[in-house]
Structure formats: structure tokens, C-alpha cells
């Protein structure tokens, strides 16, 4: 067995001081193996986003250890962190975080540009990623010309475009209708079947059910951690591709 992609031990995150202190994470320990598909659920304010930001190397914990691919993230330099964020991790924000007044395709191209991909190749791959989320026809639109769901799908495309080994998604389906949700989840299932590691935060039970492993957070701590399907097999969703697509189609044609 290779070393785990993510390994956190006794992770704590404390916001503010004195009266206003918030313990967003109270000692989370978690190991995610390569190829796993983990769903994190929990009520609002339970610390899901906080955990995710730390896993994405966007934030630092107050205490605890975080190994990304076996490397202690707190030891990485700015350049190494940038490299990890660019090549290793695809991050989907709860709040989309698209760059304003910049077209959808330019937003999707951005990680490729920082990876040093040539402009032509970049454009081709960005268009392909937009096509996957069904937004090829909106490529030239700027974020404020897109609906919330469309913006979210642009954010998904941006995270997928570098084909990262680790996909971290903070409620990627929060603003989507069931059709779009299914499309996006299908992409995740395919990625998982292709051996990539996925961690996804969700409020929806159906989304959680499709993951191989379900973690529940309450008040900054893990309360349950259940394996729903074997690590080395494709996720349940991927197995019923044809069936699921037909079902979705049927639901919508009605």
C-alpha cells in the first residue's frame, strides 16, 4: 500500500481570542488513502469548510500535523505550496471565487497558465473542461452574466482542468438542480473510477450516498466515519452509469 494522500493528526483550528474564541476544529484525525472518495457531512458551522481549507493548503491549522502525500505542509515554502496547489489539488470553493470581469474560459484557463501550459493547448483543455460541465456555449460569459449554478459549474471546470490527483470540493452541488447535480457527480464518479482521490463536502444525503466513505462532523470533531463501498472498486455511482443516466433523463422528460 502506498502512503496516504492525506493524513491529519489532532488538527485544531481556533478563531479569534478571549470571549470571541471559536473552536472550529477540536482535534480532527483523518487518513485518506489514494483513490478514496470521501464525503463529509455535518450541520452548518460544524467546521467542514475550515477543515477543507486546511486540506487544500489554503489555511494553516492552529495545531496538529498535516501530511500531504507524506510531506509536512507546514514545512513547505511559498513556491512549493503554489506548486502543490497548482499540480496536485483541484479546489472547488463554496463561494465559487471566480475572478470578476474575466470570461468563464479565461477563469478555467488560469490554473493551466500557472502550470506553464501553452495558450493554444490551454484554450483547448479549458473548453473541454467547460464542455464536461455543460457550459461550452457560455465560455465567453463573465461571472456576473452567469447564474449561481453556472458559476459553480465554471468553478468545477476550473478545478478539473488540471486533472489533479486530489479533488477537494466544498459543496460543489449546493446551487445546482438535480440534473446538473447528477452531471457533476457523474464527473466525480468517473474521476474516482480513474483512481483519483476526492473529498467532497455536502448537505445532500444522495450526494453522500454515492461516496465510498462518509464522515460526519459535529462541532469541530468527527463523530462517525463509515466505509460505504470498497476502496479499490469504482464508486457505486460509476457502476450504474448507464442506469443512472437513463434514470435522470427519465426524471426530466416527465
Amino acid at each position, binding site marked *: 500500500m502506498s502512503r496516504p494522500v492525506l493524513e491529519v493528526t489532532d488538527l485544531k483550528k481556533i478563531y479569534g481570542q478571549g470571549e470571541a474564541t471559536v473552536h472550529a476544529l477540536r482535534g480532527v484525525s483523518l487518513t485518506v488513502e489514494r483513490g478514496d472518495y470521501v464525503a463529509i457531512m455535518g450541520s452548518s458551522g460544524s467546521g467542514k469548510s475550515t477543515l477543507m*481549507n486546511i486540506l*487544500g493548503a*489554503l*489555511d*494553516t491549522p492552529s495545531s496538529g500535523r498535516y501530511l500531504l502525500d507524506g510531506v509536512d505542509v507546514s514545512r513547505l515554502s*511559498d*513556491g512549493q505550496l*503554489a*506548486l*502543490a*496547489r*497548482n*499540480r496536485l489539488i483541484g*479546489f472547488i*470553493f463554496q463561494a465559487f*471565487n*471566480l*475572478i*470578476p*470581469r*474575466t470570461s468563464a474560459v*479565461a477563469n478555467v484557463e*488560469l*490554473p493551466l*497558465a*500557472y*502550470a*506553464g501550459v501553452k*495558450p493554444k493547448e490551454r484554450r483547448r483543455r479549458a473548453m473541454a473542461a467547460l464542455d464536461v460541465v455543460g457550459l461550452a456555449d457560455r465560455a465567453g460569459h463573465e461571472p456576473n452574466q452567469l447564474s449561481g449554478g453556472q458559476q459553480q459549474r465554471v468553478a468545477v471546470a*476550473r478545478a478539473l482542468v488540471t486533472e489533479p490527483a486530489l479533488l477537494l470540493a466544498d459543496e460543489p452541488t449546493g446551487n445546482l438542480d438535480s440534473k446538473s447535480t447528477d452531471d457533476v457527480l457523474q464527473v466525480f464518479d468517473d474521476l474516482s473510477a480513474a483512481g483519483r482521490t476526492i473529498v467532497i463536502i455536502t448537505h445532500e444525503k444522495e450526494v453522500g450516498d454515492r461516496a465510498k466513505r462518509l464522515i460526519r462532523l459535529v462541532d469541530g470533531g468527527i463523530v462517525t466515519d463509515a466505509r460505504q463501498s470498497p476502496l479499490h472498486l469504482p464508486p457505486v455511482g460509476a457502476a450504474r452509469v448507464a442506469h443512472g443516466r437513463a434514470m435522470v433523463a427519465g426524471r426530466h422528460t416527465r
Partner: protein
Amino acid sequence: MNFFEVIRFSLRGLSANKLRSALTMLGILIGVAAVILLVAVGNGSAKAISDRIEALGTNTITVMSTGRGGSSSTSLTKDMADALVDEQMAPDVKSVSPVVSSSSATMTYEGTDHSVATFVGTTPAWFTASTTPVERGSAFTDDDVAQGRRVVVIGKTVAEELFPGVDPIGKQVTVGGALFTIVGVLADKSSTGFDDANDRAVAPLTAVQQVLTGYGALTSIIVEAADPDRVDAVQGQVATILNQKLDVDPSSTSTPYRIQNASSLLETQSQTAATFTTLLGAVAAISLLVGGIGITNIMLVTVTERTREIGIRKALGAPRRVILTQFLIEASLLSVLGGALGVAAALIGSQFSIVGVKPVIVPSSIGYAVGVSIAIGLFFGGLPAARAARLRPIDALRYE
């Protein structure tokens, strides 16, 4: 990611925020143009004044009578002028030109009248002493003066008024009921004051005295020094001779005459002008500062948005160096472009005369203005970006 790509990113960033880019550039443009133009106006007026003084001749002194009412005991006479030509007492004097002038002479040619602003009667030395050379034809001679011949050299304006399209030389005009023959035309003289330096006529002293002014007092005596460095010496020598002639008590502080020294006038004048330019420069510096504050404001107002954008870029894997380069290029493009436009605006503006002054650009002011505005643009454009690039991505994203 190569440098060329970063430049493309910067250009895209600038075009994505057109209003902000335009306002920033406008701020720099105004600051730069104001500094250059104000300094140019100050310099221009200083130059105008010194030109006017230099036109008087820097190696001459002018003796004028202060006595009012033409009392014979205090007025300047031809006799005194002759006394100034004295190898012993005034060795540094090169020439002496007694001058009478009339401002009410009317010149008539074939029915056309022209009222000449200054009709000067003098000796041939006047032409060099007053730096008013003859352009066409010739000046009159000492012999003309001795004989009181009625010949006249006219200025450009007079020639244009009376002889449009005709060569005036050899023509005869009537002045004060007497016929004068035109022998020459004066070279163009820059007139920077209210009166036209080209609107004049010069004739032999004796002729003018006979026809126009009478044989009374001289208007002034122009004394030319042998060397510009000897002007002060000449002034002393002239004063000594005149005091003797006019019986002035050496201990008395007031003399019946006044000596105007062009070079000392020029000196005081250029000092005043320098002060003036410095003052305008200070005003300009303030306007540059205000322009700078404008730039700063615009840059700081957008700092929230920029910080968030930097957060996103970092989250997507942009190294700090690339972010910094991008934002610094953005800032420098804005300030360089704004500065260049400001210089262009100033150069165009300097073609027009401002409040009656023709601005003369001071090259160093361009350097200063552009330098300062670029520094301001870079500092306030680069500083927030540098700060944001150092933040953790999540903190940059949350920045408010």
C-alpha cells in the same frame, strides 16, 4: 510561466478594469502635465523678461535725466555727451550715443499716414550700442549727422504699414513737414513688452532736433562699454564726468540724472525670475502630490477586490513572484502610460501662450514629474499587491 505571459496577464487585468485604469492614468496625467506646464510658464516669463532686458544691450548703460520740466541746469545736453568721450577720464567707454526721441511723429508716404511710436534722433554708434542692426540698406553716417541730412532708417512695422510690397529704400517720406529719404530698414526686434519695438524710425540727431524736438535737452545718452565686464567701471566714470559737468556735490545722494545698467538689471531680474519659477514649481509639486493622492485613493479603493483576486490566484497555484510581477507591471504600465500622456498634454499645452506668457519647457521638470508619478504609481499599486501576495490564500479571500 514566462515573462511575456505575465505581461499578457497584466494587460488583461488592465482591460478588465477599464474605469479604474482610466482614472489612475488620468490622475497621473494631470499631475505630470501640471508640473511641466507650470514650471514652463514660470521659465517662460523669466525668459521673456531677460530677453527684454538683453534687447537693451548688456554692455551699455543708459543715462537719463530725472529733472522734470526741462530746467536747463539739470537736463542732459549734447555737450555732456561729447564730454563722455574722454580717453583720460573714461578709458572704458567705447561709444556714446546721445538720443532724442519723439513719440508723436507722423510719417506720410503718398497719402498714407503712420504714426511712428518712437522717432529717435541719434548718432551712428546707436545701432550697435542698442543692438538694433540695420537689415537692408545702410545706417546713416557721422557725416550725415554733421550735415544734418534728412535720412531715416525705419523699423519693420513702419515699413509694412507704409510700403506694403514695395521696397522702401530710396523713397521719400514726410515727417513734421520735412522730407526724409529712407536709407535702411532695421532688423526685426523681438518685442516682448506692450509697445512694438519695430514701430520706430531712426534719423541723425541733428535732423531730428531741427525738425521735431528742437535743440533742447537730450532724452538719454547711451554709453557702450568696451567690454561687458567693464560696464560697472564705465558707470563710475560716467558718473564722475557728469557730476563735474552738472556741479553735483559728491556727498549728495540725489543726482539730477539716473543711470540704468542693463546687466545689473538682468541680474536682479533673473534672481526674481528664479524665485518665481521655484514658487510655481512648488505649486506644481503640490498638484503632483494631489494627483498622487488621487492615484493612491483609486488603488486603495480597489484593494479589497484586488486582494480577493490575489487570494483566488494563489489558491489556483500562482507563486508570489508571478503575482507580484503581474501587479507591478500593471502599476508601471498605468503610470508610464499616464506619465507619457501627461508629457504629451504638457507639450501640446506649451504651444499656446498661457496668461500672456509663452511657456518654455524645462527638460528636467519632465524627468522629475514622470519620475515622481511613476514612483507613486508603483508604490501604491505595488504595495497592496505585495501585501496581499504574502497573505495565506484564505485570508486574502476573506479580506474586507
